[in-house]
């Protein structure tokens, strides 16, 4: 029976990959003919590629790519060493699998003009996504540059959720769950916020004239992944004996390395989201750095006051929380607001991790919800408070700048995202659990996932 399950899960996983590749192969041929015969491209208004903008977006894409391995080290250092490779592997496989998913159909689902709810399938295999700019998203860089920049966001978002179920999820189940989650949760929500005609890009249907401000993905990336983290942590259950014996991180230096790579990559994430090498990018760069610094310092001080010593883990947790919170606001707020957002995110996340988590009793192993969920939520709401047209005329004013409606829009956008992520994540988890079984056996959990899921060990004792 056990063997059957294993085979099932493999066939399931391979099936999905095969489907993606076959769909791709068929469409690739169509693309070739379509490109040759399509006269529409010539009739469209001429947009010029700006070399500076293109260079910056390509560099930013590479920076954001580095965040996923960075996250791997950040998370990897926090788990026991018997599960270290498993966490690294989950991140690296997401980088591989979702990059494939993205070019085959993910980008099309998110960004192809479609309905309010989801993009279309016309851009599968990047059909029609060429080297000319696409005015609706970016007038000065090749469409494919925008696509590959977005690919890195699609990769890191599901990777964030790993923190919630680390140390106890079967690898096959993880792979299938992640592909489904990216397709049915990330892709639609990205379309709502960023896609042409997306649900949250024009909120007039709710009687709120305007649009949800989300500069670099506070709602799409962090609230979305944070809620998915909470759901998975709640259903998968606690790690064995976690209440009796707290688990110390196996290598905090690795986590510091990972957090540093995240901080570094985040400049691409936020400043790159300007999609131009201009003043707006510089503003995003500066406030991103400022908020991270303020949050890191604040968390260290809170630790010092409450636990008697400033801790390394607290400091890097603060830095990451600060980066999360400033993400939606980076293109709309100034330096003073960035400081406030940074200081307060550490207060909120510290409270969530130290008081809320023990009280509610879920085992979010590496605080994916505590930092990305809570931090992302605060960032999205703070954008509705602190946004200012002085910083970005294309944005909107927030509550503190005389436009209370923007705050309501932010609240509504968060609630919509939370409800959707909550329900669909739950459904996807239950499906995968029924077909494959999500959790490893008690014995596998005890021996460790490196050896039982990957036949490898991170460290040797004897040469």
């Amino acid at each position: 029976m056990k063997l059957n399950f294993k085979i099932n899960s493999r066939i399931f996983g391979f099936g999905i990959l095969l489907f993606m590749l076959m769909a791709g192969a068929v469409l690739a041929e169509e693309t070739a003919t379509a490109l040759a015969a399509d006269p529409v491209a010539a009739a469209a208004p001429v947009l010029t590629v700006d070399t500076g903008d293109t260079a910056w977006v390509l560099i930013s894409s590479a920076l954001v790519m580095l965040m996923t391995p960075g996250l791997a080290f950040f998370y990897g250092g926090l788990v026991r060493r018997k599960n270290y490779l498993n966490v690294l592997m989950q991140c690296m496989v997401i980088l591989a699998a979702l990059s494939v998913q993205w070019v085959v159909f993910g980008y099309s689902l998110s960004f192809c003009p479609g309905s309010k709810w989801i993009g279309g399938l016309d851009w599968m295999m990047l059909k029609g996504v060429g080297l000319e700019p696409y005015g609706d998203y970016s007038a000065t860089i090749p469409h494919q540059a925008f696509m590959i920049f977005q690919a890195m966001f699609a990769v890191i978002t599901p990777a964030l959720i790993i923190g919630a179920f680390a140390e106890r999820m079967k690898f096959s189940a993880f792979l299938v769950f992640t592909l489904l989650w990216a397709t049915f949760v990330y892709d639609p929500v990205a379309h709502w916020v960023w896609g042409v005609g997306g649900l949250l890009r024009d909120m007039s249907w709710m009687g709120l004239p305007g649009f949800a401000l989300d500069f670099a993905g506070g709602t799409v990336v962090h609230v979305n992944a944070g809620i998915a983290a909470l759901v998975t942590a709640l259903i998968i259950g606690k790690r064995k004996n976690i209440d009796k014996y707290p688990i110390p991180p196996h290598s905090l230096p690795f986590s510091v390395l990972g957090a540093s790579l995240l901080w570094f990559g985040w400049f691409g994430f936020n400043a790159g989201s300007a999609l131009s090498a201009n003043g707006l990018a510089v503003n995003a760069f500066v406030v991103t750095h400022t908020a991270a610094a303020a949050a890191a310092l604040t968390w260290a001080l809170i630790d010092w006051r409450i636990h008697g010593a400033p801790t390394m883990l607290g400091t890097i947790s603060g830095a990451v929380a600060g980066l999360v919170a400033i993400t939606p606001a980076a293109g709309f707020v100034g330096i003073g607001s960035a400081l406030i957002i940074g200081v307060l995110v550490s207060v909120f996340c510290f409270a969530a991790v130290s008081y809320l988590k023990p009280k509610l009793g879920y085992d979010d192993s590496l605080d994916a919800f505590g930092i990305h969920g809570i931090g992302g939520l605060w960032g999205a709401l703070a954008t509705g408070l602190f946004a200012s047209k002085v910083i970005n005329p294309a944005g909107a004013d927030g509550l503190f700048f005389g436009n209370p409606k923007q705050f309501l829009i932010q609240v509504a956008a968060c609630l919509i995202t939370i409800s959707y992520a909550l329900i669909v994540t739950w459904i996807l988890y239950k499906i995968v659990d029924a077909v494959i079984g999500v959790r490893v056996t008690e014995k596998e959990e005890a021996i460790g996932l490196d050896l039982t899921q990957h036949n490898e060990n991170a460290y040797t004792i004897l040469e």
Partner: protein
Amino acid sequence: MKMIIAIIQPHRLEAVKEELYKVEVNLMTVSEVLGHGRQKGIAEVYRGFKETGNLLRKIRLDIAVNESFVQPTIDAIRKGAKTGEVGDGKIFVLDLAECVRIRTGETGVLAIG
């Protein structure tokens, strides 16, 4: 005086310590060791190269006790370490010839506690 050596599963260490504290055995030396009994370990594969019969991580406890503590110590270790699966480990009991506390120079029964 006896020397009790126990080889246990790494993930049972905390449970064993807890049981030992309950019977007031607070002094122990813990080391990380490699070994396998009937289990033969789990095969590891590196770039297709398979290493079979790998050694598994185990924890070794060294505990010196006076006669009256021998049975309680053994019971506590068993209670904490047992999962019922192959690989739970072993306990060895050896006669201990002498024991000296470095700081005071005390020897024998006095030095152990």
